[in-house]
């Protein structure tokens, strides 16, 4: 036993914010709980039945009271709503300079890939003070990436990408839990998040076996899966060139358009016929079952590394 905490550690910028909101709600809840308990206790004693068959005078209710105890709780809940929504809104918007990390949930482990190519299982090393954005998916069932010390939690859903972000504020080792029930060894799908001083983080990143970056792995996969045979860089292949694809707007055969983001690229690899680029035949076979979710993420990273589209660059300047 030993340790017996009653309150979780605060290790991200969100943690104190969520806790302040919690204290506000606790104060309101404590006030009303005491009010109701005290009123019941007081009335029950004060107006206890003294004689058998006594008949108290009738009160049929009072509109002012009803309005009062409707309006005051409603006002308080709207404060809770607005405050809670503003935190949620910021939790949904990772800053642009956030460190990108990919997470794949799988019965019953967390697989993590860093941009530089480093991979970990059930451990996540991140530098102190820098916003970190996780892009997540699942190989099988729904999982949930939960770090109590950061007060953040996000489902990793098969078939789509979800994101979450946090900015660690304290070096240390924190619990990582899978919070969405995922089968027999759900409670073993846990790990640790290590928040490191930037220098230690840099050392850690350099250590271990050196592999290429995530984009390099994607490039290898691009060869192995023979994607390169059709998707040639110069637009003379049977398929559209992928140079400058990421972030651009793609015209579809249906006449519509789609923004080429991670989800679009993932879908085009696994379900190529879902959205056909205008001017090209639906010739691509599906790679479902041939490439893992981690592999898809490497391919996405490779395609990203082929450069942003000229239009996107223009927009940024």
């Amino acid at each position, binding site marked *: 036993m030993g340790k017996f905490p009653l309150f979780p550690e605060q290790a991200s910028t969100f943690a104190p914010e969520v806790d302040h*909101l919690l204290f506000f709600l606790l104060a309101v809840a404590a006030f009303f709980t005491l009010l109701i308990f005290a009123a*019941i206790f007081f009335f029950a004693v004060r107006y206890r039945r003294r004689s058998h068959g006594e008949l108290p005078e009738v009160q*049929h209710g009072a509109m002012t009271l009803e309005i009062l105890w409707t309006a005051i709780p409603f006002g308080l809940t709207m404060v809770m709503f607005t405050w809670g929504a503003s935190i949620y809104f910021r939790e949904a918007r990772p800053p642009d300079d956030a460190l990108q990390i990919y997470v794949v949930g799988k019965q019953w482990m967390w697989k993590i890939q860093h941009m530089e190519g480093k991979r970990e299982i059930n451990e996540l090393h991140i530098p102190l003070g820098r916003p970190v954005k996780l892009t997540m998916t699942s190989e099988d069932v729904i999982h949930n990436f939960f770090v109590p010390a950061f007060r953040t*939690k996000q489902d990793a859903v098969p078939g789509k990408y979800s994101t979450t972000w946090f900015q660690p504020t304290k070096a240390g080792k924190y619990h990582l839990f899978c919070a969405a029930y995922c089968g027999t060894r759900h409670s073993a799908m846990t790990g640790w998040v290590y928040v490191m001083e930037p220098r230690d983080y840099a050392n850690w990143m350099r250590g271990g076996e050196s592999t290429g970056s995530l984009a390099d792995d994607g490039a290898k996969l691009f060869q192995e899966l023979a994607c390169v045979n059709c998707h040639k860089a110069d637009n003379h292949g049977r398929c559209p060139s992928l140079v400058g694809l990421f972030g651009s707007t793609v015209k579809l055969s249906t006449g519509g358009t789609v923004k080429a983001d991670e989800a679009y690229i993932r879908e085009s690899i696994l379900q190529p016929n879902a959205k056909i680029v205008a001017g090209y035949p639906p010739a691509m076979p599906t790679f479902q079952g041939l490439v893992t979710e981690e592999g898809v993420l490497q391919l996405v990273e490779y395609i990203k590394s082929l450069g942003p589209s000229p239009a996107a660059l223009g927009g940024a300047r």
Partner: protein
Amino acid sequence: MTPAVDVERETYLNAGHDLKSWLLTKDHKRIGLLYLFTITLFFFLGGAMATMIRLELMTPQGGLVSSETYNKLFTMHGVAMIFFFLIPSIPAVLGNFFLPMMIGARDLAFPRLNLISWYLLVIGGLFAIFAMLAGGVDTGWTFYTPYSTTYSNSWVIATALGIFVAGFSSILTGLNFIVTVHRMRAPGMTWFRLPLFVWAHYATALIQVLGTPVLAVTIVLLLCERLLHIGIFDPKLGGDPVLFQHMFWFYSHPAVYIMVLPAMGVISELVSTFSRKPIFGYKIVAFSSVAIAVLGFLVWGHHLFVSTQSVYAGMVFSFLSYCVAIPSAIKVFNWTATLYKGSISYATPMLYAFGFVGLFTIGGLTGLFVACLGIDVHVTDTYFVVAHFHYIMVGGAIMAYLGGLHYWWPKMTGRMYPEMWARLSAGIIFLGFNLTFFPQFILGYLGMPRRYHVYPPEFQVLNVMSTAGASVLAVGYLMPMIYFIWSLRYGKVAPDNPWGATGLEWKTASPPPLHNFDETPVVTHAAYDYSTVTGEGIDFG
């Protein structure tokens, strides 16, 4: 009071003694007792599983059962308690028995349908029990996809079919109640003379009829994917797993109100009777039931704040969830105000009513935490949520059910339960409940996820407290079981109106005659007019 000579007075209980007279009865009172018997069985089944869960969680390593067994225990605990105990509990037992009597009717509108609905619950229950005996199901009572459709190797189909069939029991009961309240009210029983118990059951019936079919559809789709591999929810088959959550909670959130609205109806009766005053703000309490039923359909998305639902949808659902909290708060304030200048008795049912209001207040207020987007992201899928919904469902619905059972026991059986034992058990249940579930709020905020067989050692102290509380709670639940049975033979003979209550059910004999009333009552007063019953009732101080 009943003259002492009616030794051979015909009651619904002695109208037939053989098994057939029970199994083929069309009497709403006997069907109510059939339900009572059935759901009590499921309550103790679900309770046995809860006991195993709490014993396992005394140690962090998980040595008592395997992870596989643990997952099956919490799944079947949830299935038994929610679908086969809580949803039928108050409506099918107390509602069945007393809704017709309270409006002065001889029976429900469709007595045969009422019997069929009991059989449907039994058939559904047999499916579920078969699944348990055959090896169990391990999906969690929420059956989230694609785990339930593709990955689980347990008895998903049998359990889901059981819930599907039991759902029709709920639909038919709701339908029966709606038609009965519209068509069978005694002369003079206008809508605003209805006891609040009836208003609450009417609102509940609307949810049962409108919500339960969605659950049926969801189960059919789940079976289609699991059996026929039609891609609906599993992305590998081209489906969307989050779609399941929307459909499931579209029923299962309103289902919380199927459990708690009837409980609120019971509490209105108890608070009024034992303070001898009409409920403060009768019409507002009545309409708040309807408001809860309507708004309850619009909040399902608050279960999906971390499920990749859009940020804006999350905001809308958070806002609406706060709106549905208001009518519940209004009820609590009105019950409390009813006590003011009342003549308050501490009879057992009132102790349960006090317990309900207190625990429901905590349950409701912690609902504000989980409706709050910023906080829910942290506490969802943790023990905070487990504690919150047990405060509503056990602290709320079961306290009210037991309060109602004590209140109407003399009418149902013609016998009084032993008052001192009953007060003692009410106290034990209140203490045991808080000791079990309050530590779970702290555990949840600390970050202990729910459905964890093995957990980090720093959570052990609070888990041990919770388990200690659960053993107190178990004693509290076993006591009524024993003294209720004891009272059938040895309890004091109950007068017609032991509490000096106003409802029509107290204006007939205890136990009631076969057709409830010797002549159809004519209603001339609003509900809860105690000037008509002065001088009656047993003195409980």
